[in-house]
Structure formats: structure tokens, C-alpha cells
């Protein structure tokens, strides 16, 4: 195995793998990607993998829309022979207060500027055409976008990794990066459980663990781990009007629930959580999640839960990602802080990073993602996030 590369990527989640692929695609494939466990074993493989374009800020909507276009043919894009499981059964977003409904109207304007086909749904006449058995008590309004949906997070990651490998990227799994090596203000490489590797550029995509690595060279990244749990039921026949039930999501009631093409329902709620790396599952979550979701969708009461798990959100102060070019160790880039929606924006974020590193023109300004924004106050604010 080689000991020196042009670029070392730390983290084999969707972010690390997509960046490896986008760089390799641009002719830079002398890359080593290092993952502590197996590919997708971090937040990526624990996520709901929901993909929505119904965002409230131009920035998030742009990232999500352009990423969705890539998810729509990720297999072809990467040459992967598996199935990435994209299912565009739509998202029904429900508003539970007048204020939230007003916000949804503004969000629709943003979405329409970007060509997203989202629209309000009449609660009395039409909502049943999307989710036949919804209990509309306490719901003020709803919007729908057919092109929203979800994908298989394992296969999407494997697809990017496959594409990257085909182009010459080396991937080392079950290997932990123990420390970053810097000298004279420049990054030099990493020390791992399988020895040292050198590179003049290190891209730190270790999600909730990224700030800890960055801190070794003196970079302060204000991102904190927060446990989020999910559960899955046994598979049942499609419960949507023409296939799996669309995603139903409420910011106010803080839940999401979707049916996978395979028939199982995957769901989660936002709980109040302390800052912690704890990813143990709790009984409280099982009961609360089922309680909250059965109120809106009583028809799910008969479904049996087969598994629950937890993962970490990498929370940033404005709940949007940070792309930080180190001032202490030139050549180190830290990318984290996706705050629970990193899967759906990863494809476009990887392009943003790769284009910047390859001096290509981009409509999006990568500097806006710097952690400097917490000093200057130019935050990336998003009104609609769970």
C-alpha cells in the first residue's frame, strides 16, 4: 500500500465518499479515504435518508434541488451496478399553526423561484389523495412536492465509493485516524491504527468527530454531537395512493414518517437532547415516537416495530454546514455541521468543494460556509428544519 497521497479524506460517510468521487472525476484520484468502521457506518447509515426540496432558504433549497437531480441517476453517474433505492413518493409537510402556515407560503415562493413543483394541498378535499388515512385534527395546512422522497443511504454511499475506486481512489476501512500531522503551519498527513500516511491536503469529513480532529491543530469548529433516534416497522403493502405512503413531516409536532419501497415505515422525532456522543437507544423514544405519530396517522397503530437505533446529528449554531479552510494548518479542510440534513445535500456540497479545489467557477460561494460567519453575524438561517 502507498504511504503518500495528494489528498487524504477522513470519514467514509456520504460526505467523504462523494467528495472522493467528485475529485477523482476531475482527474485528482491520488486519494486515500480512511474510515474507522465500514462505509456508511456513521450517521449516513443511521439516517432517514429523506430528500426534500421544500426548504425555506434559497441556499438550502438550491443545494437540495441540485443534489436531487444527482440522486435521480446516481447509479449512472457513478457507474454503480446496485440500486440506490430512490423513491420519489413526495413529502407532505403539515403546518399546525397560522404562523407556520404563513411561513410555508413564503417557502413556496422561494421554492418556485428555483423551479420546484411544490404546492398547497386542500385539507378537506385533497389531502386524502396523498395520505388516505391522515387525521387532520389540529392541522392548519399542508404543502406537497412529488419529487421529494428518500433513497437507500447504504447504497448511495457504496455507489460514490465504487465510482471513486474505479477512478483510482484507495479506500481503507476499519482504520482509525488517531491524529493529524502538521508542521510549520501546513498539514502533512495523518497517523492511523494502520500506520502513517502523508499528504499535503487532508479533508476532514468525520462528522461529529471532525471538530475533535480539527482541534488537534488548533482549529475551533463550533459543532456538537446530539443523539437522534429512529425506528422501523415490519414491511406492509403500500399505503399511499399509488405506491408507498409519501413522507409526512411536521416541524411543529417534530416528527417525520415515510414508507420505504420495501414496505417498512421509517420514522423519528426530535427529542430534547444534551450534547453527547451517546448513541444508545431508549424505550422513551419508542413510546413517544409511536405516540406522536399515531395521533396524526392512527392507521399505523397495527404495525409492529422491528428495530430501533440512534445516530448523531452534528449540530452547528445556525444548523447549516461549515466548510472551514484551516488557518493553523494550511491544506486541512473540515466539513461538518450538517445538523440532521447532510444526506440530501451531500451530492451538491461535494461538487462545491471539488470545484473550488479545482479552480472551477461555481454559482455558490464556498466562503459563505466558513465558521467566520459566527463572528461576522452573516448566518445561514433556515426557517424550516426539524
Amino acid at each position, binding site marked *: 500500500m502507498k504511504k503518500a497521497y495528494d489528498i487524504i479524506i477522513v470519514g467514509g460517510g456520504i460526505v467523504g465518499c462523494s467528495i472522493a468521487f467528485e475529485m477523482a472525476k476531475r482527474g485528482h484520484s491520488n486519494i486515500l479515504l480512511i474510515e474507522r468502521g*465500514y462505509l456508511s457506518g456513521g450517521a449516513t447509515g443511521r439516517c432517514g435518508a429523506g430528500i426534500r426540496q421544500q426548504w425555506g432558504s434559497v441556499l438550502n433549497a438550491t443545494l437540495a434541488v441540485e443534489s436531487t437531480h444527482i440522486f435521480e441517476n446516481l447509479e449512472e453517474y457513478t457507474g454503480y451496478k446496485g440500486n440506490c433505492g430512490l423513491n420519489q413518493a413526495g413529502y407532505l409537510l403539515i403546518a399546525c399553526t397560522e404562523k407556520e402556515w404563513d411561513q410555508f407560503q413564503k417557502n413556496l415562493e422561494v421554492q418556485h423561484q428555483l423551479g420546484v413543483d411544490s404546492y398547497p394541498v386542500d385539507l378537506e378535499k385533497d389531502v386524502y389523495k396523498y395520505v388516505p388515512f391522515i387525521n387532520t385534527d389540529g392541522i392548519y395546512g399542508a404543502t406537497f412536492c412529488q419529487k421529494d422522497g428518500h433513497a437507500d443511504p447504504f447504497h448511495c454511499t457504496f455507489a460514490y465509493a465504487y465510482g471513486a475506486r474505479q477512478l483510482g481512489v484507495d479506500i481503507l476501512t476499519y482504520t482509525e485516524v488517531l491524529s493529524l500531522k502538521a508542521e510549520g503551519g501546513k498539514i502533512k498527513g495523518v497517523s492511523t491504527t494502520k500506520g502513517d500516511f502523508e499528504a499535503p491536503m487532508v479533508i476532514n469529513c468525520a462528522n461529529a468527530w471532525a471538530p475533535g480532529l480539527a482541534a488537534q491543530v488548533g482549529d475551533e469548529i463550533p459543532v456538537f454531537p446530539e443523539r437522534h433516534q429512529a425506528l422501523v416497522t415490519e414491511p406492509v403493502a403500500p399505503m399511499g395512493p399509488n405506491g408507498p405512503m409519501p413522507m409526512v413531516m411536521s416541524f411543529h409536532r417534530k416528527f417525520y414518517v415515510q414508507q420505504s419501497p420495501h414496505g417498512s415505515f421509517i420514522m423519528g422525532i426530535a427529542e430534547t437532547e444534551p450534547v453527547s456522543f451517546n448513541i444508545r437507544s431508549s424505550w422513551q423514544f419508542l*413510546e413517544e415516537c409511536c405516540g406522536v*405519530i399515531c395521533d396524526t396517522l392512527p392507521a399505523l*397503530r397495527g404495525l409492529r416495530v*422491528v*428495530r430501533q437505533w440512534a445516530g448523531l446529528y452534528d449540530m452547528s449554531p445556525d444548523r447549516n454546514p461549515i466548510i472551514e479552510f484551516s488557518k493553523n494548518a494550511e491544506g486541512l479542510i473540515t466539513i461538518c455541521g450538517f445538523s440532521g440534513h447532510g444526506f440530501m445535500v451531500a451530492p451538491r456540497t461535494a461538487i462545491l468543494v471539488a470545484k473550488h479545489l479545482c479552480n472551477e467557477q461555481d454559482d455558490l460561494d464556498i466562503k459563505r460556509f466558513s465558521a467566520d460567519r459566527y463572528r461576522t453575524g452573516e448566518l445561514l438561517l433556515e426557517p424550516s428544519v426539524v
Partner: protein
Amino acid sequence: MADQILICRCEDITKERLLEVIAEGYETIDEIKRATRAGMGPCQGRTCRQLIAQELSKIYGVPMEEVLMPTFRAPVKPISMGTLADAHKKGGE
């Protein structure tokens, strides 16, 4: 024919499919579970974990104890959402 043997009954994964993903480079039970869904069905891998572990142990020549075992995830037995929802309501009042 032997390769049509079912390894994971819940998700219909045959030995042929298992050997296929191993040939593609998936090396551990954790990876195979994500690539094929083996072990994600209602029984949560009670039977197939052992069978996959045996296969991996044979192919890679490592002892069974060293084949990386995935975590068992709660609930250990399937339980209905309604039962859980009612437990939540009771706890809340």
C-alpha cells in the same frame, strides 16, 4: 442448486447472493447486512447471522469469534406501534 439455499428467510437472501456480495468486496456481517438487507427482517438476524458468519469464517480463514458481529437492536421482539403509543399516553397523564 446448493447456492439457492436461503440464508436470510425474512428478506429472501440466497447463498448465491451472499457469495456475490462477498465477491464484490463486502467483508463483514455489518457490510453484508447493509448491502443485502440480510438480518433486517422481523427476526433481526437470529438465523442468518450465524450462517453468514460461518461463510465469512470459511472464505477468509478467520475463526468464528473474530468475524465482526453486528449489534442486536431493540426491541428484541416485534411490538405494535399502538401498544407503544398507548404506553406513551399513560405515562404522560
